[in-house]
């Protein structure tokens, strides 16, 4: 998960995993996010890592980006803040899949 200091990410008694467990994600077979990690190696900001509210992006030791797509809010933050053309592609998940908000 996050690379911040130990204890970070655990706010007011709720771990990030518990927080995400409150959301209904109907995971599809196709990854709707793809990352070209070669492009990410030259990225100095890696804004997606901290800005993604679902914490889906993790920096790897070799400077790349490891991504998840399963627990995605489909907000679009990642591709909006990405400053490297072509590093990140983002589409909607297949119909009927992805996040389902019950209390939006």
């Amino acid at each position, binding site marked *: 998960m996050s690379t911040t200091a130990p204890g970070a990410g655990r706010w007011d008694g709720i771990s990030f995993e518990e927080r995400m467990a409150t959301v209904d994600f109907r995971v599809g077979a196709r990854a709707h996010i793809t990352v070209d990690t070669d492009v990410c190696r030259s990225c100095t900001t890696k804004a997606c890592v901290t800005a993604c*509210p679902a914490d889906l992006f993790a920096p790897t030791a070799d400077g790349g980006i490891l991504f998840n797509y399963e627990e995605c809010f489909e*907000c679009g933050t990642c591709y909006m803040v990405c400053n490297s053309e072509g590093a990140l592609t983002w589409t*909607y998940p297949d*119909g009927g899949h992805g996040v389902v*908000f019950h*209390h*939006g």
Partner: protein
Amino acid sequence: MSGTTTNGTTGPEPLEFDAVVVGAGPAGASAALALARAGRRVVLVERGPFPGAKNVYGGVVYGRVLDDIVPGWWDEVPVERWIVRRSTMMMTGTQSLSVDFRTDAWGSAPYNGMTTLRCHFDAWLAGKATDAGARLLTSTVATGLVRDGDGRVVGVRTDRDGAELHAPVVIACDGVNSFLAKEAGLLARAEASHHTLGVKEVLDLPPGAINERFAVQDHEGVDVEILGCTREIPGGGFLYTNADSVSIGVVVSLPELAASGVRPEALIADLKAHPSIAPLLRGASLREYAAHLIPEGGYDTMPALAADGLLIAGDAGAMTLAAGLWLEGVNFAIGSGYAAGRATDRALSRGDCSAAGLASYRADLEAQFVLADHKRLRKAPSLVLSERVQQHYPGLLCDLAEGMFTVTNPTPKPGGLKLTRTVAARHGVKLRQLAGDTLRGLRIFG
């Protein structure tokens, strides 16, 4: 459907419509409703399993726009609470200053604003459209536009078998990320500076506790807008009451959030721990966490709203009004969607679905609140998100109130002007700037 076979077809059902509406949120449902009422064959394409599944909002649905569209809407709408208290709070880490307004007038028909859950509200509105004869196709993504030889939009491709839905007009109500508006070249691919990120927690709280803590009863609710709760990132917070839960969240500028390296949920945690907020939420447990983008650029960043065979409405057209004192989106989506539906009907009647034939859409929006409000408040986003308003004024006003109301015996009370000058200097604001911003605010909001 007699004679249905296992390959899922019942013979060649024509996939031709008068209009395809993409997205069954408030904009799309209203557009489909207008078209269905005009007797048009309209299909409403929704990518979620039900309308509202993908939608998150930050507070209040203002129902005045529904008066003409669904008369007597308040008797049937799925409501959580009717807003009777509206509070604007400015805060620093240890202080808060609220302007709190309450009125009985908002607590009875025809009401002013309400809190609701989008999966209920959006489904209700889409139900109005299907009752009027619109077809609702859920769990289906409109993956792209279909164009004819002249480049006019004549339909959408879907992710079901790659099959297409054809119609002379496509109304894209596919939300803030609108890939259809982007494909049509109406919307920039990724313009972070025109967007804010909203993150929200819905917290379980018994109705009795809500009534006591927020000083309301029965179906009355409270809406609190908060400034100064987002650290150094431009933005704001909100807190409002549902029937048996409260929603709390922050809305922050996307590029500044990315530059700050702060995790979004940390900002909510800050807000929830604030001494003015924490007692309201004591013992509440998390029911659902959510995040969504908001188009907050306002009038000046709004895309062209029509192309040949294509209209855009709602968040896809950046219709959310984020002007400090007013934060409205759902009503703008309904207003723009219904107008798009009626403009499409007129264009179909005239047989001209080009951008020029659909131009009555924009004229209609300019004539009513949707674009009139946006135009009048076009400078508001830049003022509200300016550094002084974000970083200095909440603290300045809180310190001013503290200076005014702290009893300093035996030292005599400070004069108001002297106090203002001292406090302003402490916050690095010149009185001239304060006066200038006040004037600017009066011009924008007055």
